[in-house]
């Protein structure tokens, strides 16, 4: 019993082959499900925030199982920063664009003047774009919070 414990500790307790193989198969499906929740926000429960949480959770799962360096190889800090700026920017940009074209903030039917699809189609499409922005923002900021908290500020090793 005792030496078995020592042996289990010695052989990289963080790197577990069983867990890694299972998670490797699961992550693409979790990501696709997160994207599905973002894309179908106006028909089913969910939307930008929930889908963003699932997308972020997929990458957090990766960071938990493969270690933080591997997840940094997957989405680097710079890309993450860019994404976390892009998300709110898309949201505010759509809103501001509506103001520019003569509507009120986030009044998507004003966008009809860019490309005449009809106000109803633009409302649906505008909600989708805004939710995309929210999703990207939530994903990257969740990932950022996890990275900072799990490594006590220095983003190198992680949990």
């Amino acid at each position, binding site marked *: 019993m005792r030496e078995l414990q020592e042996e289990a500790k010695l052989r990289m307790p963080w790197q577990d082959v069983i867990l890694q193989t299972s998670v490797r198969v699961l992550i693409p499906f979790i990501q696709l499900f997160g994207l599905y929740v973002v*894309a179908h926000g106006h028909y089913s429960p969910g939307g930008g925030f929930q889908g963003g949480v699932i997308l972020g959770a997929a990458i957090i799962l990766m960071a938990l199982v493969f270690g933080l360096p591997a997840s940094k190889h997957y989405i680097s800090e710079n890309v993450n920063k860019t994404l976390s700026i892009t998300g709110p920017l898309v949201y505010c940009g759509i809103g501001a664009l509506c103001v520019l074209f003569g509507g009120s903030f986030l009044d998507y039917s004003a966008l009809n003047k860019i490309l005449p699809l009809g106000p109803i189609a633009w409302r649906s499409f505008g909600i989708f774009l805004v939710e995309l922005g929210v999703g990207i923002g939530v994903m990257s900021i969740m990932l950022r919070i996890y990275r900072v908290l799990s490594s006590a500020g220095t983003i190198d090793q992680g949990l």
Partner: protein
Amino acid sequence: MARLVTFFIMLFFWVLISGMFDAFHMTVGALCCLLVTIFSHDLLFYGRPDLSWLRDIGKIMGYFPWLFCQIFLASLEIAYIALHPRMLDIIDPRLVRFRTRLRNTLSRVTLAQSITLTPGTITVNMAGNEFTVYALTQHAAEGLPGEMEERIARALEGD
């Protein structure tokens, strides 16, 4: 090649979970599948860029019903133990170590997961080809690795 296969698997999955076939949702779906493919194709087919997994999936489908049957029988045994008034006399927990003759990682992980799924035994550690298994009763400990290993070897390694 791996990218193409991943894309079509993801597309199938998207059609299954989405259920909306208008042009907008299919376009979004194709874009999402492309995104997941670009990011995660090396996760799903790590180290196996050829098509050998297709044959494996077909073979492992024949293994699942047997596994499910085993799980059901063993669960009944656990139910008997859990509801027995003098439970402490029946159970006899012990650690078992054994070596497997399975060669590649995927089949070893399949064996480990099957052992964990079968009630009465849990895989504690897997280092190389050496398994450490925690068995609840003597009867469960004697049944290791036994027929399960043979079936996995037949399904995944073709011998």
